């Protein structure tokens, strides 16, 4: 055998075998290289994909915190409803994919089996609604309106309903305690958007597709605190979705409760009085326009003067915030936001702006003092003031002779301020001032008072108002000159003439501009909240606070209390002596000035009130009335658009609010027992050991009670319609939610 010819080793075969060997090794090398590429180079990426593959998250929504008033009464809380849900994972384990169970469930709920089956199918491009748009591992809600009987049927026969649960779940509710609606302040929730889900996906608090997010008001401003943290249970699942283990899980942390400075009773009184005043105004005849006042919108603010905390804030027209709960219907949405709506979603206390009229004179007076005019100097209060052929009249043509600044403020003498403004304008260089020359005391002071910018209230989308200074005029002219120059005619209509003049010199501070500005007319705009801040500062000795509604954030277990401290914004540029003078003048307004006719018989010696009325002229519309008032502790601002003078439209309402606060009876006596809030609420509501908050009950309607004690008010009915107008229904009584209450988690719920 040793000499067997090497037939197997002919050169051709030998070469080919070597080629095969090399080929085989290179193939294995290729595999090794590819393996290295997948596992080492791209390994991290695939590891991520693998973990995404087999871990499914089930999000347990956090219960949203309550919004409470200063005494702990819930303004927004959660209602417990029985939600029947189906677990897809469990249903798919059944032989017929759960069809039998769902059919049985439909029978219990009184629905069609097909409807129920449709609700649990997953949405994709081809599936029409209804279908489930969320995670297939999330229990899918079949109904959130199950009756306790239905829920019992399901829970007691759990073995007949595998994969079906009937659990109480929290749903937002705005209970309107004592009919205090507080709609615009509370804001509303609406479903989370895809963009928001994407954004929050990788944070520690991911959104659920069914989540609601605060869209306005406190719900939005304090969304993060109220929301809490959704719990996430991570399940390891296999390729069929069967759970094979539990990974790291985070339990849900319920949202914190927000204690506000709102007093729901005062809020109710404010809302009621605003509504009543607007209704009354609509019965009034407007001599200027020859028709009744429209009184189309209004706002009222009650603020703690020494802290800037808001006790009540109402805006009209208003709406029922409960329409948002459970998804708003297209019809309701149109009614709230459509072109024909009167935009009830707007919070006019912070988003409404108008010329301040004479309430602006507090700024002009301070400006005059800053510019060097003596408080007690004699300033001519003539019945009119002429400039270059243009006649500026006193409001009602009154003539008081030479008076002090204080007196001018008290009697609201326009011509005194015309003179001061005109004088300053001339000192600043007239129509063509040299660069750097104008001192602009009147404009500078307005800025120093915080006008033309947000007050910083803890509500979203506050508007700034406007100080029409030189810079603004220039900007405005640049933006509009083309239109003005196109439409302006020298001898055209009033509007055309104005456009013509604006085209020519709208970029300059004209004499008439500053004269108009000095009494808060023209292009000046302020918001009610700015007025509240300014008059509050006058009341407290010159400190402007950023208005706040949130008072404290209390964790759900009550253990962590985070107080929201009042924040000083600025000091008024006014000396104490000047403030004293203003204080006296504003008291005079109440006792003998423009507001006196509404405050007959007010116990001024016991509860000194101060005020300033204002009436803003708006071209093409009826006048906007302002009434800015303050006591030792509160400033109360009320404004109604297209309703005549400030005192006429709002005087009675503001007086009634003070009466309710201090318990002033119709005959001028003070009944401390009936006083709602003779002193601002100092402390926070008591938190019980279980985290629930001790809240007093509100029986009946505080506005009605307050009204009843005003029977003998000498002012009531003296000028306007007596308060016999039908009771406004601003409370949330006609909510689209069924009134059924089921016992459950809502331990903090208030009977309303």
């Amino acid at each position, binding site marked *: 055998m040793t000499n067997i010819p090497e037939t197997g080793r002919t050169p051709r075969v030998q070469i080919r075998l070597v080629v095969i060997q090399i080929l085989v090794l290179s193939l294995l090398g290729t595999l090794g290289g*590819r393996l290295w590429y997948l596992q080492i180079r791209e390994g991290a990426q695939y590891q991520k994909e693998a973990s995404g*593959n087999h871990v499914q998250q089930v999000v347990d929504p956090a219960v949203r915190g309550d919004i409470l008033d200063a005494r702990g009464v819930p303004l927004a809380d959660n209602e417990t409803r029985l939600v029947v849900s189906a677990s897809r994972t469990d249903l798919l384990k059944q032989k017929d994919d759960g069809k039998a169970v769902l059919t049985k469930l439909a029978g219990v709920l009184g629905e069609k089996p097909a409807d129920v089956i449709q609700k649990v199918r997953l949405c994709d491009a081809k599936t029409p609604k209804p279908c489930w748009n969320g995670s297939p591992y999330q229990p899918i809600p079949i109904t959130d309106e199950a009756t306790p009987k239905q829920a019992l049927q399901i829970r007691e026969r759990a073995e007949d309903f595998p994969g079906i649960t009937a659990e109480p779940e929290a749903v937002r509710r705005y209970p309107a305690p004592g009919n205090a609606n507080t709609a615009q302040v509370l804001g509303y929730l609406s479903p989370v958007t895809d963009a928001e889900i994407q954004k929050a996906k990788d944070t520690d608090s991911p959104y659920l597709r069914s989540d609601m997010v605060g869209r306005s008001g406190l719900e939005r401003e304090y969304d993060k605190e109220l929301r809490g943290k959704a719990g996430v249970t991570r399940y390891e699942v296999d390729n069929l979705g069967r759970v094979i283990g539990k990974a790291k899980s985070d339990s849900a942390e319920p949202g914190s409760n927000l204690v506000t400075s709102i007093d729901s009773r005062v809020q109710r009184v404010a809302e009621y009085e605003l509504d009543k005043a607007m209704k009354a105004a609509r019965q009034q005849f407007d001599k200027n326009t020859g028709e009744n006042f429209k009184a189309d919108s209004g706002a009222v603010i009650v603020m703690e003067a020494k802290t800037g905390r808001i006790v009540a804030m109402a805006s009209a027209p208003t709406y029922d915030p409960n329409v948002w709960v459970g998804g708003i219907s297209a019809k309701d949405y149109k009614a709230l936001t459509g072109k024909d709506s009167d935009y009830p979603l707007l919070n006019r206390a912070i988003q409404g702006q108008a010329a301040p009229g004479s309430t602006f004179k507090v700024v002009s007076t301070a400006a005059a003092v800053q510019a060097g005019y003596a408080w007690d100097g004699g300033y001519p209060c003539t019945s009119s003031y002429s400039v270059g052929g243009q006649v500026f009249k006193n409001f009602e043509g009154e003539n008081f002779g030479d008076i002090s600044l204080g007196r001018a403020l008290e009697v609201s003498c326009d011509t005194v301020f015309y003179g001061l403004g005109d004088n300053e304008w001339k000192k600043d260089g007239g129509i063509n001032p040299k660069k750097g020359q104008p001192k602009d005391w009147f404009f500078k002071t307005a800025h120093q008072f915080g006008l033309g910018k947000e007050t910083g209230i803890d509500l979203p989308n506050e508007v700034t108002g406007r100080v029409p200074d030189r810079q603004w005029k220039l900007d405005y002219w640049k933006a509009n000159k083309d239109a003005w120059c196109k439409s302006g005619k020298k001898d055209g209509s009033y509007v055309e003439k104005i456009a013509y003049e604006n085209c020519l010199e709208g970029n300059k501070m004209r004499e008439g501009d500053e004269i108009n500005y000095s009494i808060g007319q023209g292009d000046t705009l302020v918001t009610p909240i700015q007025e509240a801040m300014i008059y509050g500062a006058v009341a407290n000795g010159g400190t402007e606070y950023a208005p706040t509604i949130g008072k404290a954030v209390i964790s759900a277990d009550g253990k962590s209390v985070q107080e929201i401290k009042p924040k000083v914004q600025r000091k008024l540029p006014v000396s104490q002596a000047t403030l004293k003078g203003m204080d006296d003048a504003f008291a005079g307004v109440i006792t003998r000035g423009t507001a006196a006719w509404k405050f007959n018989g007010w116990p001024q010696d016991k509860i000194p009130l101060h005020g300033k009325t204002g009436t803003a002229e708006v071209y093409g519309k009826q006048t906007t009335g302002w009434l800015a008032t303050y006591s030792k502790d509160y400033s109360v601002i009320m404004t109604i658009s297209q309703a005549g003078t400030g005192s006429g439209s709002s005087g009675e309402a503001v007086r009634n609010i003070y009466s309710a606060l201090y318990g002033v009876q119709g005959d001028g006596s003070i009944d401390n027992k009936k006083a709602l809030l003779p002193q601002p609420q100092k402390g926070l509501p008591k938190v019980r050991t279980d985290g629930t908050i001790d809240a007093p009950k509100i029986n009946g309607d505080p506005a009605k009670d307050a009204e009843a004690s005003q029977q003998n008010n000498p002012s009531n009915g003296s000028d306007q319609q007596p308060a016999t107008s039908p009771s406004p229904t601003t409370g949330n009584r006609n909510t689209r939610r069924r009134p059924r209450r089921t016992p459950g988690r809502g331990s903090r719920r208030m009977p309303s």
Partner: protein
Amino acid sequence: MTGANGFSVSGYGPERAGWTRIFARDSLARRLDWPILLAAVALSLIGSALVFSATRNRTEINQGDPYFFLERHLMNLGIGFALMLATLWLGHRALRNAVPILYGLSVLLALVVLTPLGATINGQRNWLVIGGFSLQPAEFLKVTIILGMAMMLATRVDAGDKPYPDHRTVAQSLGLAAVPCLILLLMPDLGSVLAMVAIILGVLLASGASNRWVFGLLTMGVIGCIAIWQLHILDQYQINRFAAFANPSLDPAGVGYNTNQARIAIGSGGLTGAGLFHGSQTTGQFVPEQQTDFVFTVAGEELGFVGAGFIIFLLGVVLWRACRIARDSTELYGTIVAAGIVAWFAFQAFENIGMTLGIMPVTGLPLPFVSYGGSSMFAVWVAVGLLQSIKVQKPMSA
């Protein structure tokens, strides 16, 4: 050239036959190719662990017994090992005489698959279920076709008549191979047909057949592919399925899903893997057919680059040694058989691992030694027996 005589080891004189001397100098034990044997045993044992990991939780197929597949795998391994020993004992030369019978038997088995006795598993009618055992005749065909072709091509060369097989012999051997290929195409078992083509190429190359045959065969294959492509013999979904290895989105619910999950499983293994029994892709059963065709993904995920690379290394050892055996064989018959086995193992290893790595299309070919499956296990161990037999009868003087 002598016939086989009973149970003596072919190529040895009768004076050396018998197990009593296996450890003597120049004994059988000394002359065995130990690297191949050890690598094959290692691959099989690693395979057992991987099969166990992949199946212990698959209650829907393991009948509630986590050890169901492990036990059967080990039993198959035992049978395979016995077949290897039997083959070694008989010797490839002895088997040479039985080749016509073995060839006929395997073709007959394959034909039975096409009758109603055959079973369709995973869309391919390539199974034969006999008394609870399922057989894949395609695996046996791979062995018999190598032996059959080798016999035809080598007979006259080994007899010293010719340096190379003549055209007539080559044509006859190709005819011999064409019959089982046609049967496999009818099943249809495209993967096995491809493996057959690889084997035929390897056999032809090793036989020393004229280059014209080799290139002719290659050209025919290319023309055939182009024809299938151009004449739209395949539906678009079939083409998509074929191409899905490169772009899983072409067939996301079918093969694309497999390749995607397989790639995720392997990629997530990293350097050292999740540890045996700790792979989430494996535990979660995201990769279908994981104990059989996709068994490499278990290694990739749970043993990482180190473990999966070791499997490739072991396959490399087997193939390298088999190549040496082919080159060192004293007769063309042994060379052809060894080369055919090299082509078979190499193609299946590259195709099987390549498809899990996303560089080859998905076909139903098992990974030699590692995948679960009796027929494949028996066939590869018989092949190991053949390789050893060729090795041990190398003359001492060589």
